[in-house]
């Protein structure tokens, strides 16, 4: 890849083990000498090109392919027990998130269920994360990957703001994120983020670890997204009022959680406008459905 050339990756022997590190902030911690990248230098190599993210971070675990057996690099392959870490369970991508633009700004909504196969791993996850006062990101895909990349994005946006004195535009944020995700294309990383924010107008951009980067007026992502699209497309108009937009978003996520097994629990909702973001409006989907049942029984 072009990035490989920039990093002179091809000239160095390849490491198969995926290095984890304790926190993103410890970029200067020297790595153990078994890291082939650091055979000559004691300080972890970072690069301005990679926005200060340690270079080794961009080396994803290589896919297991027979072509590697015959290359001379195979002499550097560590024994099998230090291959890529085994996943404890099948990573599932169950979620419903959506975002849309209307006359009053941007609405971002998501369910709060984290599923791991058939288990509800956590019923109260925040799938919508504020990046700064006028940008939130909704995440879907692998929960761990999303959390990591949200943190990286927050850091990079803040660093840009500190270095340059102004905030990076949302389109540039999306492009930056897309470029950071590109080295991991083809690996098992699965991240599908929707950046919802305001800079000189409402913006909604979908960024995916496959490499897609789309700007649009309405996006829904996740296993429940077809159901959400069904409700959204029927009633979405530019001229919605704030109350109508919030209730439409809530309704769309609720219908998706009803049909999709991997979405459920509550609905998180954010409304972003030109003035400071109005904050988290939390609706309890389960209670709402119980109320409607009780209402029917009474009448």
């Amino acid at each position, binding site marked *: 890849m072009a990035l490989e050339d920039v990093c002179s990756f091809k000239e160095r022997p390849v490491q198969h083990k995926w290095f984890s590190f304790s926190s993103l902030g410890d970029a200067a911690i020297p790595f153990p000498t078994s890291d082939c990248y650091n055979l000559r230098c004691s300080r972890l190599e970072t690069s301005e090109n990679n926005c200060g993210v340690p270079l080794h971070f961009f080396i994803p675990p290589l896919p297991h392919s027979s072509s590697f057996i015959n290359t001379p690099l195979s002499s550097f392959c560590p024994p099998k027990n230090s291959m890529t870490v085994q996943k404890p369970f099948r990573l599932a991508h169950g979620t419903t998130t959506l975002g849309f633009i209307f006359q009053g700004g941007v609405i971002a909504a998501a369910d709060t269920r984290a599923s791991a196969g058939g288990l509800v791993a956590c019923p109260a996850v925040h799938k919508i994360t504020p990046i700064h006062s006028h940008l939130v990101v909704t995440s879907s895909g692998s929960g761990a990957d999303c959390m990591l990349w949200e943190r990286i994005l927050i850091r990079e946006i803040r660093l840009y703001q500190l270095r340059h004195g102004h905030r990076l535009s949302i389109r540039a944020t999306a492009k930056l994120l897309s470029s950071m995700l590109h080295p991991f294309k083809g690996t098992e990383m699965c991240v599908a983020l929707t950046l919802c924010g305001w800079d000189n107008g409402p913006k909604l951009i979908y960024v*995916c670890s496959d490499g897609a*980067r789309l700007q649009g007026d309405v996006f829904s992502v996740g296993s429940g997204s077809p159901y959400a699209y069904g409700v959204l497309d029927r009633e979405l108009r530019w001229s919605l009022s704030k109350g109508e937009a919030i209730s439409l978003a809530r309704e769309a996520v609720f219908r998706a959680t009803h049909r999709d097994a991997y979405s459920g629990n509550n609905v998180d909702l954010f409304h972003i406008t030109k003035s400071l973001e109005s904050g988290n409006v939390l609706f309890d989907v389960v209670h709402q459905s119980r109320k409607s049942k009780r209402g029917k029984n009474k009448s």
Partner: protein
Amino acid sequence: MEYLIGIQGPDFVLVAADNVAASSIIQMKHDYDKMFKLSEKILLLCVGEAGDTVQFAEYIQKNVQLYKMRNGYELSPSAAANFTRKNLADYLRSRTPYHVNLLLAGYDDTDGPGLYYMDYLSSLAKAPFAAHGYGAYLTLSILDRYYRPDLSRDEAVDLLKKCAEELNKRFILNLPSFTVRLIDKEGIHDLEKLTLGAK
């Protein structure tokens, strides 16, 4: 799924691409532009795998512009096509090949109009008309039947409409609208979007 078409006339090239950006069964966008402007008279139409298209096309686009900055004149369409093919070929047998299908359309002041067909295996062919995607199976025969080297611009647009109508009639997937552009010695012109209603 995605569809590209190019028709070369005596002094112009007409190109069109569908406007759907899809993710598995969902249309994420209905107005997505798949054409990349390489220079004043060269367009690159790019379809294929989700991230590869934009990454590769923008890489070619920036390199063509860099050539102009360094040397003071623009790459000809033929040179740009061969440069693109070379990059595809270089990455073909790497760990990360680009899975993209391309049409490069341009107007050279000395050689006239040119349409270049490239696919993900880095083949390159200069052709009077070309198409990519499943829709190509339905429309190449129409192009074979009705194409003439001395088409006027209106006739070329009519031929394009014939192809779009055939897709609307027989193609299983819904491609509601197409971006249409024309390149001639004056540069790149946006023509009216081709939208087809329900049959």
